[in-house]
């Protein structure tokens, strides 16, 4: 099969999913009305509720939902073979992913911009909201652990990468200063900072700079610091946490926002270049790369991941379905929708575009890297490095040397992760202040709240196995998605509409996610009981196991309350007697 055929399969998936299934649900069940006033207009306060053009909102939604998930997930999941991963990406988006994103927006719009926290309180129970919020906190902690490990342990330890990343940070601050203080034209600011950022990435690849960072890393084989954590991994994870501290405490306009802006162009140009490269190259999928390896996810010499069901369905989270999207859609996008009829284009459309990104990432590994190199890289724990290698191969087809493409791919991924991590730490800080502020007033302090969030993240980053953390992150993400689908089903029932199109995906995702979490808990606990693990892995495994069991129990309690709410007879309001 040719790589272009895979793209065509994705496009057919988009066509069938969007134009047939999604549009029919939109027309027959939700029935959006372009004359109805949306919360963006009704409550226009210039702060949260502001109507926006559908194309602008589409761009905003896509940028907010597409992070590291659709890139790393497919790379890990092809251990079961590339075909199951591709099928889940296409079918998951077609039947589940868009349902959640689109319906989250519509529920938000019809419920006057209320978030899922408030809706769970109203539609399910008082404790449902508390559980949901604790659940979100744990989920965010897992994002920090999964992304922090990728960036601090894998990408930044490559001596050709750190200079590029650090320069993008500095140039982002320069971009902010040029825009807000010097009032310079955005085109000039963009041109100067983005060109300099690319120059910085190239600068990182030259000999003396690489030697310098190699020396900082403690040589080609960095010495062990504690357990199995090397000095380089410790150092760069500290740098990542420091960057997150700045991102979470400095004003948005000073740090996070302009850096994200410059980073966007680095990422966007990489995606465009990679897509053009693969279209020009249009290679066949290598014959030695198995379409299906086995049900255990054991590819060649690699360690088996576990059973295809349920683990494949949580390993690829974003790119098929993701709980993060429901948070963005309900509390962000729903409050900016100008007319109800834009919801499918914005929510569903962005989800289908993300599916395309996940397919590109899958091809990066299968075609751009190939079987043998993939096995070598993954066995070294360089899952993110697989994407960087694949992207470098694609960019090479349009004349960009691999010596630049490789660190560029790593900087690309690092920036994608960091832009989300700032937001996550910000949220964790606010959540901890809200939960514990009355009992422990000091946690209301911005610096203290942030340090607590970062300390918890550091423990998660420095301990345990990345593959288990990734599956836990995927499992909690999918569980979050299934809870969103459940709230959507409850809302549809309360409006006396057909809710099966959201409820059936809920059942599948809920059972799958719980099974995946419990399977991971079982794997990490039995690995610990077998013994012979370094102390950091041992501690990490206990934390991972405990977290998996805790999340499963929390989700089951929430689902129990929700099912009771679903079984309650609908309240029929009688007209008042005269």
């Amino acid at each position, binding site marked *: 099969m040719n790589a272009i055929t895979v793209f065509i399969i994705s496009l057919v998936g988009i066509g069938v999913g969007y134009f047939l299934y999604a549009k029919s649900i939109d027309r027959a069940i939700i029935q959006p009305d372009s004359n109805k006033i949306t919360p963006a207009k009704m*409550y226009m306060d210039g*702060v949260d*509720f502001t109507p*926006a053009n559908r194309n602008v909102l589409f*761009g905003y939604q896509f*940028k907010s939902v597409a992070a590291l998930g659709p890139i790393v997930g497919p790379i890990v999941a092809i251990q079961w073979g590339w075909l199951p991963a591709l099928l889940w990406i296409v079918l998951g988006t077609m039947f589940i992913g868009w349902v959640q994103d689109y319906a989250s927006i519509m529920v938000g719009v019809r419920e006057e911009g209320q978030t899922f926290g408030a809706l769970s309180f109203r539609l399910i129970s008082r404790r449902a909201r508390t559980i949901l919020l604790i659940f979100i906190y744990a989920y965010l902690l897992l994002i920090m652990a999964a992304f922090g490990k990728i960036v601090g342990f894998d990408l930044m330890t490559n001596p050709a990468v750190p200079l590029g990343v650090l320069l993008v940070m500095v140039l982002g601050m320069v971009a902010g200063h040029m*825009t807000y203080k010097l009032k310079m034209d955005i085109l000039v600011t963009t041109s100067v900072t983005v060109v300099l950022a690319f120059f910085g990435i190239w600068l990182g690849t030259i000999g003396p700079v690489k030697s310098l960072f190699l020396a900082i890393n403690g040589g080609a084989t960095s010495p062990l610091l504690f357990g199995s954590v090397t000095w380089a991994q410790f150092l760069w994870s500290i740098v990542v946490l420091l960057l997150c501290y700045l991102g979470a405490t400095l004003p948005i*306009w000073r740090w996070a926002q302009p850096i994200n802006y410059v980073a966007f162009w680095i990422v966007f140009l990489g995606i465009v270049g990679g897509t053009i490269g693969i279209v020009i190259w249009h290679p066949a999928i290598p014959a030695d790369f198995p379409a299906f390896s086995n049900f255990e996810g054991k590819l060649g010499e690699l360690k088996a991941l576990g059973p295809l069901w349920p683990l494949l369905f949580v390993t690829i989270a974003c790119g098929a379905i993701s709980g993060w999207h429901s*948070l963005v859609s309900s509390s962000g996008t729903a409050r900016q929708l100008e007319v109800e009829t834009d919801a499918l284009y914005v929510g569903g459309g962005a989800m289908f575009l993300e599916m395309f990104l996940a397919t590109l990432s899958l091809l990066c590994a299968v075609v751009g890297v190939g079987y043998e190199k993939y096995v070598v890289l993954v066995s070294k724990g360089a899952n993110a490095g697989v994407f960087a290698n694949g992207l470098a191969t694609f960019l090479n087809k349009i004349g960009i040397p691999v010596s630049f493409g490789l660190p560029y791919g790593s900087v690309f991924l690092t920036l994608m992760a960091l832009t989300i991590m700032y937001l996550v730490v*910000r949220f964790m800080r606010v959540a901890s202040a809200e939960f514990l502020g009355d009992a422990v007033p000091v946690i209301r302090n911005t610096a203290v709240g942030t340090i607590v969030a970062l300390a918890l993240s550091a423990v998660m980053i420095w301990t345990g196995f990345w593959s288990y953390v990734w599956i836990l992150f995927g499992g909690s993400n999918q569980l979050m998605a299934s809870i969103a689908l459940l709230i959507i089903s409850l809302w549809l029932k309360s409006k006396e509409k057909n809710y099966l199109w959201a409820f059936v995906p809920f059942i599948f995702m809920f059972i799958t996610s719980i099974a995946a979490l419990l399977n991971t808990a079982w794997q990490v606990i039995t690995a610990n009981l077998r013994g012979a693990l370094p102390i950091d892995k041992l501690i990490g495994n206990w934390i991972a196991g405990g977290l998996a069991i805790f999340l499963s129990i929390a989700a089951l309690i929430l689902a129990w309350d929700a099912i009771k709410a679903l079984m309650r007879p609908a309240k029929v309001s009688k007209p008042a007697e005269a």
Partner: protein
Amino acid sequence: MANPLRWLNWRHTLLNAWRAFKDVIYGMTTYEMVRDLKKERARLEHLFVLITMGDWLGIPILPPYYALRLLPYVLPQIPGWRCCLLRERDLTDLTDFET
């Protein structure tokens, strides 16, 4: 016979597509920056309304004489301020207020 004005439709379609592409890129890039700036401005304006019209909330900061003098300038901001102030907030809303 082919319609001689057909190319005009094509031009119109291409122009629309280009405009849509520009909007999408704007949405991915500067839109959030613009939104944050608007939020910042709205917050300052709401603070101004609170200082001048604080009496309504039981926070008498400014003597009513000056509040009345400032009323015409504050009046356009009041509906937005009212919506923002009275809206119930969930924890998921709070991150937006931490700049």
